[in-house]
């Protein structure tokens, strides 16, 4: 029992070390990868465009719900004028980076894990190595670099449409004065809040893109599945681990920055 627990712990620690090494090597490969800007631009286009509709929809509904819930809570204390502050701080500090990251994981991260898993299965990754091409530099590095831009951009977009959604439910439906709402937003959000939001977005981007790429890249290492089932298992694991990582990292960053 103790031995199996010890072996399990050791294997998890080894896995963490392996992931850290994978991430570091992928980032370090940026210097040696040829024609990287073109591949980064393509990754930005893929990640950004693919996730745009879901970010707009989820951002709008999050704002709508926050406006609705916030109004009824604040109404109890006669503080409806603070609705803008509540919606904006909730979005900027917590909900936008976390929800945008989860949406990006579900949309782009799962696609990345599946794509790399299939490339591993069909020997395309080994083929790159035999051609003398650094497979991490060619396949993973552009995605990691694009995440550094796409995650903050999508998070900012999420905040913008969320604030609009909040004003829609607060002002249009429940009668809060639009001027009061927007001036409350303006007064509440400070530079430190925006900085926290961006730090979270960048961290989640690196972490989740790295995790999804790692799982797909090593789909052949799966012990209990091969072929299509290994790709499926890698994709599921990528999404689950990334989602957990987002929430865990959110707690750690918040506890340091608050």
């Amino acid at each position: 029992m103790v031995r199996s627990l010890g072996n399990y712990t050791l294997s998890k620690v080894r896995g963490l070390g392996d992931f850290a090494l994978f991430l570091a090597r992928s980032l370090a490969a940026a210097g040696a990868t040829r024609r990287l800007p073109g591949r980064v631009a393509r990754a930005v286009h893929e990640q950004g465009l693919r996730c745009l509709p879901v970010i707009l929809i989820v951002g709008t509904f999050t704002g709508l719900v926050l406006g609705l819930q916030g109004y009824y809570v604040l109404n109890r204390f006669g503080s409806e004028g603070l609705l803008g502050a509540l919606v904006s701080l909730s979005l900027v500090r917590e909900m936008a980076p976390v929800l945008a990251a989860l949406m990006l994981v579900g949309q782009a991260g799962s696609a990345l894990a599946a794509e790399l898993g299939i490339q591993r299965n069909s020997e395309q990754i080994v083929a790159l190595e035999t051609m003398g091409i650094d497979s991490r530099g060619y396949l993973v590095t552009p995605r990691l670099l694009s995440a550094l831009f796409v995650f903050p951009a999508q998070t900012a977009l999420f905040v913008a449409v969320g604030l609009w959604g909040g004003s829609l439910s607060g002002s249009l439906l429940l009668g809060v004065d639009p001027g009061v709402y927007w001036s409350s937003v303006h007064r509440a959000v400070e530079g430190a809040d925006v900085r926290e939001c961006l730090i979270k977005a960048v961290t989640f981007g690196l972490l989740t893109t790295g995790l999804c790429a790692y799982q797909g890249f090593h789909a052949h290492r799966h012990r209990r599945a091969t072929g299509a089932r290994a790709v499926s298992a890698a994709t599921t694991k990528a999404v689950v681990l990334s989602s957990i990582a987002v929430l865990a990292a959110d707690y750690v960053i918040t506890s340091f920055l608050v």
Partner: protein
Amino acid sequence: MEAAASGNLLVVEDLRKGFDGRPVLRGVNFAVRRGSLFTVLGPSGAGKSVLLKCVAGIEDPDGGSVQFDGRPLDFRDRDLRAAFRRRCSFLFQGNALFDSLTALQNVALPLEQTTALARGEIRARARQALAQLELEEHAGHFPGQLSGGMQKRLALARAIVTRPEMVFFDEPTAGLDPLRRNAVFAMIAKYQRRFGFTAVIVTHDVVEALAVSSVVALLHQGRICFAGPPEKFAASGHPVVQSFRDSPDALRATIAAVRRGADIPDTLEE
């Protein structure tokens, strides 16, 4: 430098490899002469692909040595590995083409990523390779839009675009019908002569291999039990060579016995 001086481009000595304690290669020895077409024969599961992957540095061998152009290969040495890969290409059983890239982009990929050539020069060389493989009009097609034979030629175009000295072919005819098998072996022989590269093929297609190879070797129980020119293979009295070479005759005898009502033991589980 003994191997290079003797005209051997590749020398494999006592190569060993196992998986989960089960030995697959038990000390493989052979030498490949520069400019020759060397074929490793063996039944399915004999470890032919493992042998090729160990020689090409895709799998790490457990022991033994591989010498390329007279120098021992150590794939842990990045510079040595990069130098080896610049001079060799590998053609995979499933072609390993990038399905999101067009035929032209697939062929241009190794040049784009491993050379400092200008974009125009890369496109010209990729187009030239496609033309040499009679695929010029399919430059804008994706691999999924090409037939099996065209995909094989496209994979070969990608393999030769870097002008390698040696090309490894892993089961190039796996899953193909006899006509396509002939066509693929004829293609390999034709382009090997045209471009002058040294070819190492692993396959279990005896007839076709004997027709095109300079040297054939038979892998049996993790060792090379025969290596020599096709004529010697065809005339060899070695029992393993005989059983592998004469398997179509053996099958005909077995079928005749089955038709006579004889009880034939099932040997697939060996």
